[in-house]
């Protein structure tokens, strides 16, 4: 009911738009229009792009990215950024993989792992918790330094990413045989991440359709993040501090505490993302996760989480991630050459940020 009313109101607004309104509409949504055009071109070149397979692939390739985008999204809402995301995720991947190798696998990271023989859920839970805890601690350190010493997050997280790479490589190279990609992950772990839902109750999916577990996890995380951002004091404080730190402080919001919590939550999400990513990829090494922050940050910005702080929606991050995945996926699908892929991607990022700042630019 409410929806229909909103909808018809929107239609009416469209009808009433004059030329400048249309122009504004085009500029404000230019990024989506460009992406739609791109997808259109891909479909023209490769009509088979429109398929169930594509849907499933895009959704499952977006899942981990989305979780990471939520993490860095919170930090962007605080007018920050996180360049240590990639290395954090890489660390979480290496930790998770090293603790989740099959007992029978020949070259294990831990030849004698105390988790061996434990019940399945403990074997899954412990690596997850450790990965989340490690990422949360490093991210909290970022948050503390940004909030207390007022160092720009760019430099703090840049430093942290270098530091993390050191710690990560130290850990990765610690086994006697040296650092080797950590594969041979246990079937429990792989199934937990790569499994799929073929039916809901009596309803059997047909036409090759299924729901990957990863998509389910991403959906659950989305709901949790939505509630956290919109329905809790923590979330409201995050937006207030991001929008106007001074006003928030004057109103008695614990600004430092908010910073630390947001960064900690980011860390937890990176840990979870890394845990899932290692299972998705099937192995991990010390260069895993490299540059993941770029896609995550770009997706957030394209999705309207503004660098000027205080603005952002869960749906925006979702849209940003989906659009980016569809774009990358589509370009490989249409076999567009590597060089042009980069040119197009780069162009869209610059374009998105320019449009984003334009909205908040003060005119004189």
């Amino acid at each position, binding site marked *: 009911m409410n929806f229909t009313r909103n909808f018809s109101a929107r239609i009416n607004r469209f009808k009433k738009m004059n030329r400048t309104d249309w122009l504004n509409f085009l500029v404000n949504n230019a990024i989506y229009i460009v992406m739609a055009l791109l997808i259109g071109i891909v479909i023209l070149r490769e009509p088979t792009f429109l398929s169930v397979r594509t849907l499933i692939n895009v959704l499952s390739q977006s899942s981990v990215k989305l979780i990471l985008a939520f993490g860095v999204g919170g930090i962007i809402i605080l007018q920050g950024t996180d360049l240590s995301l990639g290395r954090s995720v890489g660390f979480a991947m290496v930790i998770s993989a090293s603790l989740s190798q099959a007992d029978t696998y020949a070259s294990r990271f831990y030849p004698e792992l105390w988790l061996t023989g434990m019940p399945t859920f403990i074997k899954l839970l412990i690596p997850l918790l450790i990965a989340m805890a490690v990422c949360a601690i490093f991210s909290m350190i970022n948050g503390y330094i940004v909030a207390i010493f007022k160092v720009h997050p760019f430099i703090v997280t840049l430093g942290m990413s270098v530091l993390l790479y050191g710690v990560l490589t130290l850990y990765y190279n610690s086994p006697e045989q040296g650092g080797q990609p950590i594969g041979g992950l246990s079937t429990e772990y792989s199934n937990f991440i790569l499994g799929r839902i073929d039916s809901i109750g009596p309803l059997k999916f047909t036409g090759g359709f299924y729901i990957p577990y990863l998509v389910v996890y991403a959906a659950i995380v989305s709901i949790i993040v939505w509630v956290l951002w919109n329905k809790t004091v923590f*979330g409201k404080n995050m937006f*207030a501090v991001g929008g106007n730190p001074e*006003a928030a402080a004057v109103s008695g919001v614990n600004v430092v505490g908010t910073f630390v919590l947001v960064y900690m939550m980011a860390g937890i999400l990176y840990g979870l993302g890394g845990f899932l990513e290692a299972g998705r990829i099937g192995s991990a090494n010390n260069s895993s996760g490299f540059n993941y922050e770029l896609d995550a940050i770009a997706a957030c910005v394209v999705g309207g989480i503004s660098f000027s702080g*205080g603005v952002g929606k869960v749906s925006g991050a979702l849209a940003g991630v989906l659009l980016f995945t569809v774009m990358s996926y589509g370009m490989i699908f249409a076999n567009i050459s590597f060089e042009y892929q980069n040119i197009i991607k780069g162009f869209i990022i610059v374009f998105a940020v320019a449009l984003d700042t334009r909205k908040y630019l003060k005119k*004189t």
Partner: protein
Amino acid sequence: MVKQSILKIEGVSKSFSGVKVLDQVCLDVKEGTVHSLMGENGAGKSTLMKCLFGIYKQDEGTFHLKGENVNFTDPKHALEHGVSMVHQELNQVTKRTVSENIWLGRYPTKRGFVDENKMYQDTKSLFTKIKIDDIDPNTRLSELSVSKRQMVEIVKAVSYEAKVIILDEPTSSLTEQEVDKLFEIIETLKKQGCGIVYISHKMDEIFAISDEVTVLRDGEYIGTNPIEELDMDKVINMMVGRDLSHRFPPVTNVPGDVKMVVKNLKTRYEPMVNDVSFELKKGEILGIYGLVGARRTELVEAIFGMRTIESGEIFIDGKKLNNSSPHKTIENKLALVTEERRSTGIFEVANIRFNTCSANIKKYVNNFGLLSEKEMFSDTEKQIASMRIKTFSQESLIRELSGGNQQKVIIGRWLATDPDILLLDEPTRGIDVGAKYDIYNLMIELANNGKSIIMVSSEMPEILGVTNRIMVMSKGYVADILDTKNANQNDLLKLSAKYL
């Protein structure tokens, strides 16, 4: 019936580096009344408020709230005790909703989640309490007009069960209807027993709403009177009454032919300058006076090419000026010394030489395409000597100098470009008396050498002391242009409120 005192300020004094900015100031706000606090720009009103809210610590004096001695540590602390201030520049999270702003920092929760419903209802009932019915608590603040945002801020104060609400220039950007609405709200608050401190320059408002008026001048407490005992002239006398001789050098320059003509200048974006026309003569010092929000800075910025012009033209020596960017106006021999010295004037972490030469850097490019340190050095030496800049060496960082000396460096920088027209925006703000005198002298000397000068100032004495003519602005419009010889403070004050 004798009303009870709520907020009592007694004998508050405050000095900054030896300069007394508040001297034994008193204020007694009674419950259910509006107490107006008046004084010229720089009279000490905002310093007094900053002492009350704990942003500054007063050197002596006390604050009493309902008879109890209080010393707030920060605005939040004051808020919790029911003392709240609505600033002219609203400090809000504009990207969030009305109710979120009101309950910021103390959201109601239910089972760990924010209770949106309660927040909405509480906001609604607060609005009802002070009779506001046209604001939806779920609207984002950025979508509201300034007046409504201000009401939200007042409602926020009320939500803290404020006993004292301080309104700082609350009507500076409101329309007449909005002002009426604000006054209704103030009446409602009065009835509920609130004490209101009303800071404003606008006489008619003061007389419309106040119960008592306290006047400050140059940091001194001049007096408190019930409104019935006052009229406009009395108030102005209290605000100004002082002797202006000996603080200014004799104005010896003689204006010549017309140098610059500004015709119907209008800017595109807020805050807008509207329909401004005036002439500037060769060797003339033109003062621009106005209250805060008169848009004097915007006008000089528009002339200098920093703002988008909607319509109107500027002619220099009869030739149309292309002022699409500062770059172009500098070529046409204009120079602007900005008001915000720190943010737009100086290169804080650079030395005096760099700050002196930066506007004219092309001049120092030698045959090799590099900068000639030697010439920059000698020019800077000359500048330091001629402007009497007090510094140890030209290697010193400019931020190590006093405000007056910084200002001299900046003026010197622009003089190095040999401008014909010098736009000075609040050139003496925040500098000591001696340095002010130097700058006045310099201005008159320059005018004697045929330079035309526009001086924007909020200080009435200096505008009357060192100019040939005075243009008074009010809310982006020209109120009038007066001959300084025939102008007095009353006229300026009245004119400056013309379009409010």
